[in-house]
Structure formats: C-alpha cells, structure tokens
C-alpha cells in the first residue's frame, strides 16, 4: 500500500462526496453549479498567465538546445534540420512535432541487463502511445464539449462528433474519445502503481490529477450512457455560465454536479501543479532555440565582467622561463621594473 496514491484516491473520493451531497443542501446548487466553476475558471486563467509571465521574467542567458542530430556545418554534410535545427523554421517544426506528436518520448527505450552482463535497449512505445492517446482523446473530449456552450452547434463540431462516433454502436452512440480517455488514464495510473521505479518517483501530486481525470471521464461516461443525464438541462447550465446568466434546472442530477466539480477542481489545481507542463513545453530552452550559436551571437542580458588572469600577469610570472625557452615576450626583463605598474589589476570584460 502506497501512501501517495491512497491519499490521492481518498482526496478524490472526498471531492466526489462533497459535490454529491453538497448539491442537496440549500444553496448547494448555486455553489457547485455557478460559484465554484467561476472561481475555478478565474483561478485557471489568472494562474496560468501569472506562471507564464513569471517564467518569462527570467531571461534565457545561453543558447543550450539539446542537439539530437548532426549540426549544420559543411555544405556537403547533411544536417538534421529537425533534431538540430539551425533556423527558426526548423525550430518551429521541431516544436510542433514535440507538442503534437511527443517526438522525444517516441525515442524511449527500455534498458535491460541480460544474461548478467549484456545491456540491451529496446524501443519502448507504450508510454508514448499511452501519453498520445491520453492527450489527444482529452483534447477531443474537451472540444466536443463546446457543443454545450454553442447554439447552434457549428458544423465542424458536428463533423468531429461524427468521426468520434464512427463505430456507430449503442444508443446514444459510443464516442471513442471518452472511452480512450478512460482507458489511457487508467493505463497511466496503473504504470505508476505497478512499475517499481515509476512508483518510487511518484508523488501524491502525480496520482491526484490522474484520479481526478479518471473521475471526470468516469462521471461523464456514466451520465451519457447509463444515468442518461438531461442533456437539454446540462446545456442550459453551460450556456447560462458562458453568458453570465447562470440557470440551474432541477432536472440535472447530482452526477452532473460531481462532474462539473471535478472539472472545476482540475482547473483550479492546474496552475499550481505539474500540469503547467502544457505551457512549459513552449518555454523549454533545450528545444525552442536553434543550434546556431557559433553562427549567430546569443546575447545574455546579465553578462557581467569577471576577474581574469591576463596575459600580462601570466608573462610577469613566467617571463624568465619563457625567454629561456625561446618564447617571444611582450616586455624584456630590463623593462620589467619600470613598467610593472601597467600590468596590474584585473581586466574588464571586453566589449
């Protein structure tokens, strides 16, 4: 039993009960259906902006991209324009591939010591696949939810839904994204629990968002396929929230409020947590800079002068030995005593 995931699981169960019971007490609906969602959205927006600005305040003093391929050098040497881009265009493509396809994670290998003395590295695609499935299905679900806020529902959303439901089974038709999201989040949870090294590095704050997102997906699926939530009522609430005229019809059950509360908690938790990786990836200096630091000078805004050991100081110390070894010197020994004043002090940084 691991205290980290137990704590997180219990926290999510408590949140569930809080909302489920909370909406039943007087004023609970307003609290969970309007006040908390608004606060959550404000926290999310302000928090994320604050964090991003905070990152932005710190400069990027050096150009330190991880070069994952051949540098651009001689004209006849083929350079890795995506893995070691020398141009901004290359960097943009590299970033798109990182953000949309998790290119670095795609490289993942699994190391094993075989027969006691042979190291092997095998391509490990599951984490990459799981992460991809998780993020893409989550994005799809999120976009699909826009239909609740928009009347009439735009054609592109209807089209997305059509693709999402291409299996055409069940009534209401099964939307793949929700199922994939639940499966992927379960996979990510299970690997944290069962792979010893991953469990060892996992904090309660790693389990909590997974349980929470599991809760979001689970309640969503329950509502759509099993408890058959009143969609018209749900849409009324959504549009009410979006237009700042909250309206809370009685026909929408407790499960809906749990779902909404989970999402609110997720939004409010976001800026204070590792979930900020969503914004952070754009700021990663090992990925978002071109590898051309020998061709184009990078400026460090806080570059300050440092104490250096100048050539003059060096020659002063070794002049005799240098002359003996036949090395050219700036000053002959005779001149040393009269001009020694020139060679003192530490040099300033060159401009």
């Amino acid at each position: 039993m691991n205290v980290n995931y137990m704590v997180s699981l219990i926290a999510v169960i408590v949140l569930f009960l809080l909302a489920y019971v909370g909406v039943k007490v007087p004023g609970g609906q307003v609290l969970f259906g309007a006040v908390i969602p608004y606060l959550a959205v404000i926290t999310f927006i302000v928090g994320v902006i604050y964090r991003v600005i905070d990152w932005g305040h710190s400069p990027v003093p050096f150009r330190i991209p991880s070069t994952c391929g051949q540098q651009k050098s001689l004209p006849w040497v083929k350079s890795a324009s995506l893995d070691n881009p020398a141009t901004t265009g290359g960097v943009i493509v590299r970033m798109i591939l990182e953000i949309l396809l998790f290119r670095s994670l795609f490289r993942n290998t699994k190391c094993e010591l075989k027969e006691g003395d042979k190291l092997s590295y095998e391509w490990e695609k599951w984490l990459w696949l799981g992460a991809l499935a998780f993020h893409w299905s989550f994005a799809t679900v999120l976009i699909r939810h826009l239909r609740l806020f928009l009347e009439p529902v735009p054609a592109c959303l209807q089209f997305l839904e059509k693709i999402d439901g291409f299996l055409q089974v069940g009534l209401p038709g099964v939307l793949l994204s929700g199922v994939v999201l639940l499966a992927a989040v379960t996979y990510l949870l299970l690997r944290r629990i069962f792979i010893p090294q991953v469990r060892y590095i996992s904090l309660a704050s790693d389990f909590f968002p997974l349980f929470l997102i599991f809760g979001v997906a689970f309640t969503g699926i329950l509502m759509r396929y099993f408890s058959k939530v009143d969609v018209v009522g749900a849409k009324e609430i959504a549009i009410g929230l979006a237009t700042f005229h909250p309206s809370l019809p009685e026909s929408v059950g407790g499960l809906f409020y749990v779902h909404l509360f989970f999402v609110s908690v997720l939004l409010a938790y976001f800026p204070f947590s590792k979930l900020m990786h969503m914004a952070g990836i754009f700021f990663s200096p090992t990925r978002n800079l071109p590898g051309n630091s020998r061709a184009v000078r990078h400026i460090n805004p806080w570059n300050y002068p440092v104490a250096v050991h100048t050539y003059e100081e060096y020659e002063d110390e070794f002049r005799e030995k240098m002359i003996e070894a036949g090395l050219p010197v700036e000053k002959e020994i005779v001149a040393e005593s009269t001009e020694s004043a020139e060679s003192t002090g530490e040099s300033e940084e060159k401009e």
Partner: protein
Amino acid sequence: MPDDLAKPNELLSKIDYKPSKTGWMDTLTEIRTGMYCYASNPKSVEYLGLPHARGWNPLDEDWKLPENWKEIIHNGLREQLDRFRSFKVFMDICVRCGACADKCHFFIGTGDPKNMPVLRAELLRSVYRNDFTTAGKILGKMVGARELTFDVLKEWWYYFFQCTECRRCSIFCPYGIDTAEITIMARELLNLLGLNIDWIATPVANCYRTGNHLGIQPHAYIDMMDFFADDIEEITGIKVEPSFNKKGADILFITPSGDVFADPGTYTAMGYMMLFHYLKEKYGFDITWSTYASEGGNFGFFTSHETMKRLNAKMYAEAKRLGVKWILGGECGHMWRVINQYMDTMNGPADFMEEPVSPITGTKFENAKSTKMVHIAEFTADLIKHGKLDLDVSRNDHLKVTYHDSCNTARGMGILHEPRYVIKNICNNFFEMPANTIREMTFCCGSGSGLNAGEDMELRMVGGLARANAVKYVHEKHGVNMLACICAIDRAALPPLMEYWVPDVDVTGLHEMVGNALNLPGQKERTTDLRSEPLPGMEEEDNAE
C-alpha cells in the same frame, strides 16, 4: 586501478534496478568510498577567490559549513531562478513520467534510484518547492517538498557529483528537461559553500595561473612539444617545428592540455603537429600554439558559470593579442560545449577576427562565422573532401576501429558526421556500435564533468559500463581493437575503462590516426605507427627483434 576495486563480475552482480522499500526522502545518503571524489584543496579554492575555502572531509560529520549556509543556498537558488529560465521551467514542469530513468549511465551501472535523472533533479526540486512554491509551503511532502537539512545537502553533494552532465536523459525527455542544467546549478550552489571537489578545483586554479589544467608552465610545455617532435622525427625522418605565441600567425590552435601530457592523448598531439607541418610545407599554412591559452578544456564549467567565463576568456584574449584571423580547436568534449554554447555569449563578440575560411580549400565555415572558432574534425574533413591530404590508409590497417561520440560534442553541439567521415577516409576497418549507444544516444565514458579522479574508480567503472558494454559487443562481433574519440577526457578515462571491462581494446584520438596515415613530404619509409609500434607487414627488414 586501485587494489580494493571489485572485479567486473562482482560489480555486475551488484546491479539491482529494484528501488528500496523506504521512500527516497526517507533514505539517508551514505557517502561510500570509491564513489566520491576528495574535497578540494583549500589553496586552489583560495587562489581563485571562490567562497569559503577550507579543509574539509566529506566523510566527516562536520563539513565546517558557514553559519548561515541555509540562507546562502536559499539566496543562491533565488538568484539562479531569476537568471535562468531553463532552471525555473525545469523546476516546475517535470511530470515524473520516468522516461529518463534508465537512460542514465550511472543508473544503468548502479541501479541506485537516486541516479535516475528524474530523482536527481527532485533532490533539488524538493527544496525549491519548499522554499519557493505555494503548494510546497502548504502541502509539504504530499507535493514533494522538503526542507533543506544537512542530510539533504550531503545527498546533493554526493549525487550531483555522480552526474557527468552528459545530457543523455534530456533527449528522451518530452519537455527537454536537461539534468545537466540542473546539475550545473546544483554544483554552483554547492560551490557557494566551498563544497568543491579537488579534481575540479585544482585544475581550475592551475588553468587560471598557468593557462592549462595540468599546471604546465610555458617552458615545460615547449619541452614536451620538443619531445613529440623528436618522436615524430624518429618515426618519419621529418623534423616538425611548431610555432608558439607567434604574433601575426593566421590561425591560433587551442587544444586540451591533456593531449600534451598523457598517453594516448600525446599521440593525438603528434597527429596535430604532423598535420600542421604538412599543411605548412604544402600550402604555407601558418598556425601557432599558445602557452597562455594552452587549455581547450574548461573545468570552470563544472564549477560555476562565472568560473567558466573566467577561464574561457583566455581564448579570445590570446587571439586578439596575437592578431590571428580565427581559432582552430582541437579534439575535446566539454571544451566544445563551452565554445558552442557559451563562449561567444560570455566573452564575445569576436569582432577582431575574420569569418573563418580555410586557406587551403577556400571553404567558408559559415557555421562558425560568429565565434570564429572551427572544430578540427570539420577542418580535416574539409581537407579530405577536397583531396588536400596525401594519405596512406594502409598504415591504419592493423586497427579495427569503432567510434565513441563524446556526449558534449554529440548532444551539446551535434558534430557526428565529420569525425566519421575522417575515420572512413583514413582507415579501412570501421564498425559502428549499436544504434542506441552512438550519435545523439551515445553513452558517457562515465568520468566526464571533472569526475575522472583516481579515488572514485568504482563510480567511473559502473558509470562507464554502458559504454564499455557496447564496445564489447563490437569487439566480440567484429574484432574491434581500437576505440576512437574526439575528447581528451575520453582519452584519459576510456583506457582504464577498457582495461577493466574490455581489456583488448585500446583508445585513440582521431588525429592520431590521421597522423598514422598522413604522408609527410620527404619522409623516410614508415615502419611504425605514432606509438612507435611496428606496423604489421611494414617492419624494417633488417631489424628482426
């Protein structure tokens, strides 16, 4: 090799990838002999004017820390967060997916969970969260925050000197989190408390004073070069005469001092000297070495950004003093990471030099037009491409070569093709190691970032296991007997590594092999390689020993 070093099989059998039952925050660090480097000599720290010089011993309970050490760390951390976006972002966005875990050679070789890059970073992140984040202040351990205590400091010191800043983890990280960057910051913090290691601090002090890590004074430097010139004369019949500190030379050559000091780097130095002599005779190439800037490497990089800048300043200062057109850099790993990522920014602009053009081929090195510094592998590859070298490849026929990408040149620069191109043109037998262990996925020698001391031999051997294992693979499969590299730390670190794990494989620099193959104008019949070992089939007939 120290006598008490365990045998290879013993070390292998000790590897256990299963983490301990107790959580990492509750597992106290025990500093183990063979796995750490000695504390710095206070004289070196003092010479450099770095903070809190004193004698101390990592094994002691009392590290003689300044009274307000926690405050120093806290303020240092704050300053770094304000100065480095990389650091700030890397402190915030790790999701602990674990993709980096088994990418680190120290984790692969030890199984110690705190050698997983993610956990190495968490050692520092935990204190960051406690001191600088709201969630950390309120929720503490739940969100991975903990207070800085002496035990935590000890843990930092132990594990941030068990990272070679090789960046292998960073290429697998979906956010590009670079543990090297985190280790650099952590060591900078430790440096604020005078917690340096001697294998770094003393070379830095030497370099500051004499121009090179080894403390070679100018006359001694010349002596060694004379000695190499004698060897070259014996081998080829040609007397080469390198120039030093020459004003008005076209080009300044800077290489790590390790190459003029210890085998097998010395043979690489001989290779350079032969190449430069050849180019001078044939094309009037005018290059000079410097005794003041007689160090390419920069152990300041393993101390702090400021110390790196202080040492690096010599390169441009000397180029300016001598009035050269541009600088040519020898084979070295972290030297090139510094040149590529930091030099121009820190000590530039180098507007007193010209954009580098090879005087022999006319090639413009566009990729180095701002730093004005060209890598010798680029330079030589260009010469070979243009057919400017007279090579007898058969003098490398006794070598079955594989190539080790230095982590720094691979992941901090991306010079992958040029050295391979050179090798393929100077020797007939070249075999690559498995794809997951070369190029950008190359494994560190296990001794980088100032860890190639004598007292931490066990650490170096377990750290180099992944590299050695891949060499062993090509050794057994193809009979590889020579491991080529373009890094002076490699040339110092890989020979004992090979002796330990793959005893029949030797280590060479790229330009040693160039020297072997290069025909000097007017040379005598060559019967030995640069190591003065007889070349099979080319032995002197009347000299059957």
